């Protein structure tokens, strides 16, 4: 995507002249970009430095990194919070995130296939409904869903947090996959059809493999969303041994000032690491996925 040049001021004439005209602009460009970069990175670098500071120095001191770094904040985490080990929170979050990814990939791709490759009665109406749910504020569903799962005795289980992922309720990913599948050549289906393949075969053996970029984008976004989710776990989970990382952090916040501030900052950073790692590994997929969704939206 970054191949085309969009430089608005095409510099022609002699090279020296072009250079003279371009240089100040170039310097300004880099200075501007670096300034923005500093603002963007400051909170992340701050938290790295702070996690090696003494609790009482974290807020007051302006130094990004402490002169005598300590590791007690990290070692203090091995005691856990309120008798729950930190690894419990991470295991719970990981379970939910992986469970969500599997659900989203299966259910959303099935739905997207129907929208993109099968001509059935009522398709346009259902598509409009699906787009409508994209704009629906989640909070309208919050209370009735809670009542529903409470009546089904599912509070404190992961079902309320996962069920929707297996029933394609995340319209954004359906939409992303529909856009992708619509661009695959129709001739593929027709050829497969002549060979006697049904929709299930075409979906599984032809369309899904070709959709890999869209699937990867959806998988990473789902993982990150699930990892960051706060309101869902806050409402549905109330026993600390079921808590996710977000809720573990909230336990820290609730007792802030009383106890281990440095430990909280250390855990804050550890909680960010999986998301940052995914970002570093897959940033192309994330950014391109984001860009495509907007343009075709």
């Amino acid at each position, binding site marked *: 995507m970054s191949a085309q040049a969009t430089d608005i001021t095409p510099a022609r004439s002699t090279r020296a002249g072009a250079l003279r005209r371009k240089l100040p602009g170039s310097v300004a460009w880099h200075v501007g970009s670096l300034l923005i970069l500093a603002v*963007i990175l400051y909170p992340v670098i701050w938290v790295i430095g702070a996690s090696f500071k003494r609790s009482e120095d974290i807020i007051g001191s302006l130094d990004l990194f402490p002169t005598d770094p300590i590791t007690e904040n990290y070692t203090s985490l091995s005691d856990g919070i309120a008798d729950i080990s930190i690894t419990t929170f991470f295991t719970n979050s990981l379970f939910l995130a992986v469970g969500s990814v599997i659900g989203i990939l299966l259910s959303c791709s099935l739905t997207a296939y*129907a929208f993109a490759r099968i001509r059935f009665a009522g398709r346009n109406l259902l598509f409009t409904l699906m787009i409508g749910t994209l704009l629906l504020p989640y909070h309208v569903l919050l209370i009735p869903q809670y009542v529903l799962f409470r009546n089904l005795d599912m509070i404190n289980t992961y079902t309320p947090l996962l069920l929707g992922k297996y029933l394609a309720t995340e319209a954004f990913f359906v939409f992303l996959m529909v856009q992708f599948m619509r661009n695959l050549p129709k001739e593929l289906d027709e050829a497969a059809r002549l060979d006697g393949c049904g929709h299930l075969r075409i979906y599984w053996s032809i369309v899904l493999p070709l959709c890999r*970029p869209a699937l990867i984008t959806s998988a990473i976004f789902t993982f990150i969303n699930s990892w960051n989710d706060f309101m869902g776990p806050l409402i549905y989970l109330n026993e600390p041994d079921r808590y996710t990382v977000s809720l573990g952090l909230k336990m820290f916040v609730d007792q802030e000032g009383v106890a281990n501030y440095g430990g909280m*900052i250390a855990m804050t950073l550890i909680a960010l690491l999986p998301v*940052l790692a995914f970002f570093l590994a897959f*940033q192309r997929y994330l950014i391109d996925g984001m860009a495509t969704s907007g*343009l075709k939206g």
Partner: protein
Amino acid sequence: MGTPVTHAPAMEGLSKDSEPRHGPVKPVRPAALKRRRRQENLAGYLFMSPWIAGFLLLTAGPMIASLYFAFTDYNLFDSPQWIGFDNFSEMFGDPRWRHSVQVTMWYVAVGTPLKLLAALGVALLLAQNRRGQAFYRAAFYAPSLIGASVSIAIVWRAIFSDDAIVDRTQQFFGIEVGGWTGDPELIIYSLVALTVWQFGAPMVIFLAGLKQVPRELYEAAEVDGAGKLRRFWNITLPMISPVLFFNVLLETIHSFQIFSSAYIVGGGAGGNACGPADGSMVYTCYLYVQGFENSRMGLASAMAWMLLVAVALVTAVLFWSQKHWVHYEEGA
């Protein structure tokens, strides 16, 4: 992603491939055609069945239930009691509710335009093809992924508190207002700063839109003697208006629903769930307090429906305004 990005009108539905699939190659017997169509319908609904189940069970059903709860007194333990419009009159008469509406409106009205301005500004900067462009684009996008997390909310609470970096910077310029998170008036601006910090997602969409603008247009305008500002106003802005519309719509709807950041930056649970003197009491925070801390499920449902109405109104106004400022290219 490997697909070519095309400039298609927003929300165009599925009309693109609605023309007959096989064309008039050879006549098909009506009976076979009918059978084929029945098979396609069956296959379609089978593939759609998870979504349909989810839609009925987790979206449509709950919406109806929520509308019913809005007119009842319901505390989860006793069955709902029909009370007509009492929840709504209580809501409108509640100064705390009105305060939460005010806080949210302020947050949306200040935060969203600032965020989009930052996104567009930086996108214009990055659209110049210079070294390091891809790196900056990626780095600026990162906050959008972590910005909604509890972690970043904790960091925000720290760097905007008394004596931390923001406060010290203010002191340097002679402004003595203290940290923002402890101040009922200022805490909302720390949330505005948090949303502006996440300008990367709309920026990426703007950038993709900017790359679609044909270069010939700029060259032609330059020949005609149009200056930079003229070119931006008369070419860039109309050409990216569909993308601008998409960003405005999505970011506005999103802003109305801010919760976790406000909840954590405001200090978490307990007596003052949403900031000092309810300073960061955004709408969904109050909804959470009423529903899940006070067990007023009926009242909270009424509040949720008011939010839905507000979001629907804003969406409708935006879609209506489209015809005045959004330019879709014919047949692009």
